[in-house]
Each structure stands twice: as structure tokens, then as C-alpha cells.
């Protein structure tokens, strides 16, 4: 997998590519976790109904009604956003998803067998559940829940591998990668999140049903049982942070303001939900109206978004730790590009080549497209003009040449001095509002200085 594949890369304008996949990812994760927790919750309610604990005789009807929401939301949006994640990953970072598919395709294929079971069990229950005997209803729900949870099991191993590949980096054994250091805390944590989302969604659904207040209160009380495992979240969170690599842990603990803030958003939202659930719903047996339930569900979405942002953020500067940098280059490829140039063999031309005043600026634009555009824009989100516009040329040269030392969540620069200088000139030209004339910078002393800086930053 060492040959570098060039793909046609598109400009997303002011929108950062990482945000596109992040936005869809958060939405998909939320729906998928709803589907998983929903199955578990339906099993619990069905069991309550069948084991004589349903004094009011409403569980069966509630299960049937809730399942409709599960099918309409999760089976449609969940399934299609799942496929959408694959297509979006290809659009954003084809080499990263390519490596993931290469390494884990059998486990993804295994996950697919569980999808099939999930869909068959779910739809069978949806279509025939009302007419089936109790034992078969429960069997279908259990099969659905197990299948849904196993889809989490498999994808959790692949996603956590990206962050903490563990001994896989040496052994290249798929199981070393799958059962990596953050696998278990992540799996347990996500399982609780699934239960929480399902319970809060249930509270919303219960409030949409025309039920007597006693019945509503009873159902909400039972749903609140699925919120209680939230008390374990701090322990699992600490476990997760403890197994992170030291540099990643630093981002969470204040090293990166953005990541720390998002972490606090996730923690804060979770604390609010847990407090309301444990003290209000379970301990004091309060009821909850539709508006409050919806608000708590939105808070859960916020917590999910914060958590996923942190998970993605702490991986930097890698998409697969110690293997693939965030611009989808391996350390070996970076070393090669330092010799040969990163865009020399790129067969795809600039789409707006006439916009640039000379070949050096065009080279800089191509280097930006290949190496930087995954996380940066020109003037938009995380725009380079905002980030490096006030630097002097000399500062830019050194900071780019020694990129991984400038900021340790940046990958090393992957190119010879000519490409560093081209990028510097391109950035300067942007800062100066894109004049139609621009001199070519070809001072040998400058090039030698850049070469020295690159040499000093050849640790990757």
C-alpha cells in the first residue's frame, strides 16, 4: 500500500472538508445509536409486558408504536446516512477510507451479515409483530437487538483502531488492531450512549401518545431505567482518556482549546441529562413532558456531537495513528515527496489555472490542494489567510518547513524546498488580495535555508 494514488480533489469553497464528514458522521452516529438502544429498550419493555410486571397492560402497544418510529427514522435515515458515510469518506479522504477497507474488509463484511439479520428481524417484527405470540415477538426483538449491537461492536473496533492502533503498527495483525487499547472503554461507553438516546426518544414518543397520566408516568419510569447506567460514564470516560497516547491526552486536558471546549460541552450535557434522569425521573419519580424530553434529546445530540468531535480531534495529526497523516500520506511517502515533489506526478490540473499570475503560484496552489485542503481553506473555515496571514515570509518558510514542530497536531511538510517556497508565495499572494502580477521567488540562499529547516524536521 505504499504507492501513492492521486485522486481528483475538489474545492469545497469556504467549507472545511473535515466539517462535511464530521457533520454527516455525527448525524449518522446519533441515528445508529438510537437504533441500537431502541432495540434493547424494546426488548426490556416487551419482557416487562410478558413477565407480569405490566400492571397497566400497555407495554405491548407501546412497543409496537415505538417500533414504527425506529423503522421510519433509523431504517431509512440510519441506513442511507451509513452508505452516505462511505461515499462522503471517498469524497473527502479516499486514501484513508481505502486503507481502512483494505485492513478491515472482512470485519466490515461480517458487520454486513449482522445488518442483514437486523433488517430481517426488524421488518418482520414491524410487519407481523402484532399477530405473533409473545415468545416469538421476544425472539425477534432479541435477534434485532443483538444484531444491532454487534454492528456497533464491529465498527467500534475499526474506529478506535484509527486512534489507538496499539501493537498493530508492528504486527499488522487485524485482531491486534481491532482489539486495540481504546476498544473496550469505547464500546461500553457507546453502549450506554445508545441506551440513553433510546430512553430519551422513548420519553418523546410516550408524550405523543394519548395515554392517561398514570400510564405515561409508568412508561417514563421504566424508560428512565435505561438512563441509570449514565452513572458509569465518568469511570468509562477516565478509562478512555487514560488509554489515549500522551499527546492526544494533552489535547483533551487543555492542550487544544477547541478540543477541551468540546469535551466540556459533551461532559456538561451528559451531566445535565444524568442529573435529571437519576434524581428527577428515577429517584423522585417525576414525569417529563414532551418539550423537556425533546430538550434532553437535543442535549444528548450535543453531547454526541461534542464527543465525536473530540474523538476525531485527538487523532491529529493522523487519520490512522503512526500510519497515515491527516492528509492521507504515510511517513514513507513523505520522505519520498521530500525528494521528488508531492505534486510532480499529480495528473489532475488546477481547475482555475488562469487565476494565478505565474507557475510558482500555481505550484503553491497545487501543493495546498494536495497537502492542506483536507483541513484548511483559503479564506473560509480554518482559512490559511486567517491563520498565517500576519506571519512574515521568513516565518512562513520556517513554520511550514518545520510544520510538525510548529504545531504538533500538524503533519510534516511533504515536499522539497521549491514546494515550500511555492506555498509561501501562494499564501503571500492571497494575503495581498491576488494581484495579477507577482514576482517569482528564486533566491538560492532562501532555498538552502528552507532545505536546512526541512532537514531539521525530518523526524516522521
Amino acid at each position, binding site marked *: *500500500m505504499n504507492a501513492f*494514488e492521486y*485522486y*481528483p*480533489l*475538489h474545492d469545497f469553497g469556504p467549507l472545511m472538508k473535515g466539517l462535511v464528514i464530521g457533520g454527516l458522521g455525527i448525524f449518522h452516529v446519533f441515528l445508529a445509536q438510537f437504533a441500537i438502544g431502541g432495540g434493547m429498550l424494546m426488548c426490556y419493555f416487551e419482557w416487562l409486558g410478558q413477565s407480569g410486571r405490566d400492571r397497566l397492560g400497555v407495554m405491548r402497544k407501546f412497543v409496537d408504536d415505538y417500533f414504527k418510529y425506529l423503522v*421510519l427514522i433509523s*431504517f*431509512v*435515515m440510519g*441506513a*442511507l*446516512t*451509513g*452508505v*452516505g458515510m*462511505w*461515499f*462522503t469518506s*471517498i*469524497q473527502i479522504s*479516499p486514501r484513508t*477510507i*481505502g486503507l481502512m*477497507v*483494505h*485492513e*478491515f*474488509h*472482512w*470485519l*466490515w*463484511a*461480517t458487520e*454486513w*451479515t*449482522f*445488518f*442483514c*439479520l437486523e*433488517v*430481517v*428481524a426488524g*421488518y*418482520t417484527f414491524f*410487519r*407481523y409483530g402484532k399477530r*405473533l*405470540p409473545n415468545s*416469538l415477538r421476544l*425472539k*425477534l426483538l432479541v*435477534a434485532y437487538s443483538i*444484531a444491532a449491537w454487534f454492528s456497533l461492536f464491529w465498527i467500534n473496533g475499526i474506529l478506535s483502531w484509527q486512534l489507538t492502533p496499539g501493537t498493530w503498527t508492528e504486527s499488522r*495483525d*487485524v485482531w491486534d488492531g481491532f482489539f486495540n487499547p481504546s476498544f473496550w472503554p469505547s464500546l461500553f461507553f457507546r453502549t450506554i450512549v445508545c441506551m440513553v438516546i433510546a430512553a430519551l426518544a422513548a420519553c418523546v414518543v410516550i408524550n405523543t401518545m394519548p395515554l392517561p397520566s398514570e400510564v405515561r408516568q409508568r412508561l417514563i419510569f421504566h424508560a428512565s431505567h435505561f438512563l441509570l447506567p449514565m452513572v458509569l460514564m465518568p469511570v468509562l470516560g477516565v478509562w478512555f482518556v487514560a488509554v489515549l497516547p500522551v499527546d492526544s491526552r494533552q489535547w483533551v486536558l487543555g492542550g487544544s482549546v477547541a478540543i477541551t471546549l468540546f469535551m466540556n460541552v459533551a461532559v456538561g450535557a451528559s451531566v445535565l441529562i444524568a442529573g435529571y434522569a437519576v434524581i428527577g425521573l428515577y429517584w423522585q419519580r417525576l414525569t417529563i413532558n414532551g418539550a423537556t424530553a425533546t430538550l434532553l434529546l437535543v442535549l444528548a445530540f450535543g453531547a454526541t456531537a461534542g464527543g465525536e468531535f473530540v474523538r476525531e480531534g485527538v487523532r491529529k495529526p493522523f487519520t490512522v495513528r503512526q500510519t497515515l497523516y491527516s492528509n492521507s500520506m504515510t511517513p514513507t511517502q513523505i520522505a519520498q515527496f521530500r525528494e521528488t515533489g508531492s505534486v510532480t506526478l499529480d*495528473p*489532475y*490540473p488546477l*481547475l482555475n489555472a488562469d487565476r494565478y499570475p505565474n507557475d510558482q503560484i500555481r505550484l503553491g496552489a497545487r501543493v495546498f490542494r494536495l497537502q492542506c485542503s483536507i483541513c484548511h481553506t483559503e479564506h473560509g473555515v480554518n482559512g490559511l489567510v486567517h491563520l498565517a496571514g500576519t506571519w512574515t515570509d521568513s516565518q512562513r518558510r520556517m513554520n511550514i518547513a518545520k510544520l510538525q514542530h510548529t504545531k504538533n497536531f500538524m503533519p510534516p511538510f511533504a515536499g522539497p524546498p521549491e514546494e515550500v517556497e511555492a506555498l509561501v508565495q501562494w499564501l503571500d499572494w492571497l494575503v495581498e488580495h491576488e494581484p495579477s502580477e507577482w514576482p517569482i521567488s528564486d533566491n538560492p540562499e532562501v532555498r538552502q535555508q528552507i532545505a536546512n529547516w526541512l532537514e531539521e524536521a525530518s523526524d516522521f
Partner: protein
Amino acid sequence: MDVLFPFGFPWPTALYLTLYVLTLTLHMLLMHYVLAGSAWVAASSFFTAFKSSPTRPSKIIKLLQDWLPFALGGAITAGVAPLLFVQILYQREFYTANLLLFHRWMSILPVLIVAFYLLYLQKSKWLEQRRPQLRPFVWLIIVACFGFVGYSWTENHLLSLQSQDVWTNFFADREIFFASVQILPRLSIWFAGAFSTLCMILAWQVHVHRGETASDPRAEAAGNSFDVRTLSRVGMASIALTILASGIYGSTLKKEILQYLFSGLAWPYVVGAVIGWIVQFAVWLHLSKVGTTARPTLFILTTTVVTTAVSLNVLREVVRLAQVDVVALQTRHAEAASVGGLGVFTFFLVLNSLVIVWLVRSVAKSK
């Protein structure tokens, strides 16, 4: 080129090709049901909605309206596996075509979401209570959505088979549509062929659900006979049109590709497809005369539909293999096959298949 597909390839390539073809066939059968089924209901709804006297939908239409959402869910789920294996088999080609088509390609996702929800909408009481003239337009949107998705896949597939020069020019010219003389014939094969698969599945559904709603057994039998004869006619027309579309498509292929199709690599599959069509046609002809279904006949029909589908998918793959650098791909496939997990996949494939069969049988028995 002289050894039968996939046996002439190294085992990793052969394994991935086999898995791709088989899972694609599973996806295709369900997708055929969705594509042809929605087109059938759309056409029917236009005929009935504007009649002066209200017409009750036929059993076939009711079955389709009822089962299409599940079939679409099944088709999407079944489609995940071939989507995975195509990334192992032809990663660079597939990814490049995806990227070149950019937002045009990505738009299949919202389009599918719209179609999915409209399939549920057409089952809803809300739409039932609206003017009947509204229904055909809902179906028209559904068919347009599926047509767009089918067109996009065909376009993506054909673009993935082009050379680096074509890709570079496509990108430089900021194209978002790939024009090819092969798009229409390929789409026609898919669309026409979809109806014979649909008719086979519908024949099973009519057979299984016979007598369920009968207050008058004679009227029910007459209705069933009418349905079977309708399916037979559509099935035969579908086969004839598929053969015609295949002939037209074949005429657009280069001589070297045709040589591949009639080489030892693929000719048994050409024969398989032709025999499949002949037997299907004969079975439909028989059913149109007797007007009633029996399990052995339906089993023969199913076997031949699946045989034809697998054969056509192999031929589709052979056309692709004739246009890509197979030797370069084999090295990648060998690298991919060295990664662990095949045993786990095989174990859960068998286990989950058994659980699915057990659940379906349990539900069928208890109904």
C-alpha cells in the same frame, strides 16, 4: 482468457470476484423488485386515477404497495456487501469515478431518502384521504428517483472504466455528466430485465397469499388466474426486451471485448444466460396457459432467474476485466487477502443466515 471465470485468476482475485458477483446478484434481485415494481404501480396508478368511477387496486398492486418499502430497505442493505468488495477489487477506478462525479454522484443519497419516505407515504392514511389524482404523481416522483439512481450508477460504472487521460480531461473540463453511447443500452438491460425478476417474486407472493382474503373462492381463483396471466405476459415481454437491449449493447462493444465474452473465460455464462431466458420464457408461456401457479414450477422459474442474473453479472464483470489492468489489480488483491478475518466472516455469514431462515420459518409457521 481461456479458463472459466473466476478459476483462471489467482485465488484472492477469484475469491473477491466471486463474492462480488454473488452479493451483487442478491442486491440486484431486490433492486429489480423496487425499480420495476414502482414503475408498474406508477403506470397502473395513472390508468386508474383519472377514471370516472373509482377502481379497486388489483392484488398485484396491493402487494407491491405493501412490500416496496421493505424491498428498498433490503436492497440498500444487500447493496452494502458489493459496495465493499468493489472497493477491494477496483479501488482506484471506483474512487476516481466517485470523485469526478462529485456532488452529482452524492445527490443519489438525498434522492434515495426522498424515494424511501414517499414509499411509506403512499401506504399512509394521509395520502389515502387526498384526491386520487395525487397518487400517480407521488409514484412518478418515486420512479424518477430510482431512475436517477440507476442512471447515476451506470454512469459511474462506465466512467470508472475509462483511461487516466479521459479522467484528467473530465476533471479539467469540470464535467458532472459522463456521456457514453453505452449508457442507454445498459440502462435498458437493467430496466427490462428487472421486470422478469419482479414477475418471478410476485408469482411467489401471489402463490403464498392465495385464498387469504377470499370471501368468494371462485372470484378469488379467477382473480389469481388473471394475475398469473398478467405476470406471464409481462415476464415474457421483459425477456424479449432484455434480449433486444443486450443485442444493442453488444453492438456498442469493441471487438476485443466481444472476444473476451466469447472466450473460454465467459462463453459458458453466455450460454447460461441464454438457456435461462429460454427456460424462463417457456415457464411463463406454460403459466399463461394454465393460469395457476405450483411450487415446482415456481422453483424452476426462480432457479432460472437466479442463473440468468448470475450469468449476466459475470458477463458484466468480464466486460470490465477486459478494460482494466488485471495483473496490477491482482497484486492488490493478494495484499488484501493477506489480512485476517475471512474465517470470522464465513462463520457469521453461515450463523446469521441460519438465524434469518429460522426466524422467517418461525414467523411463517405461526401466522
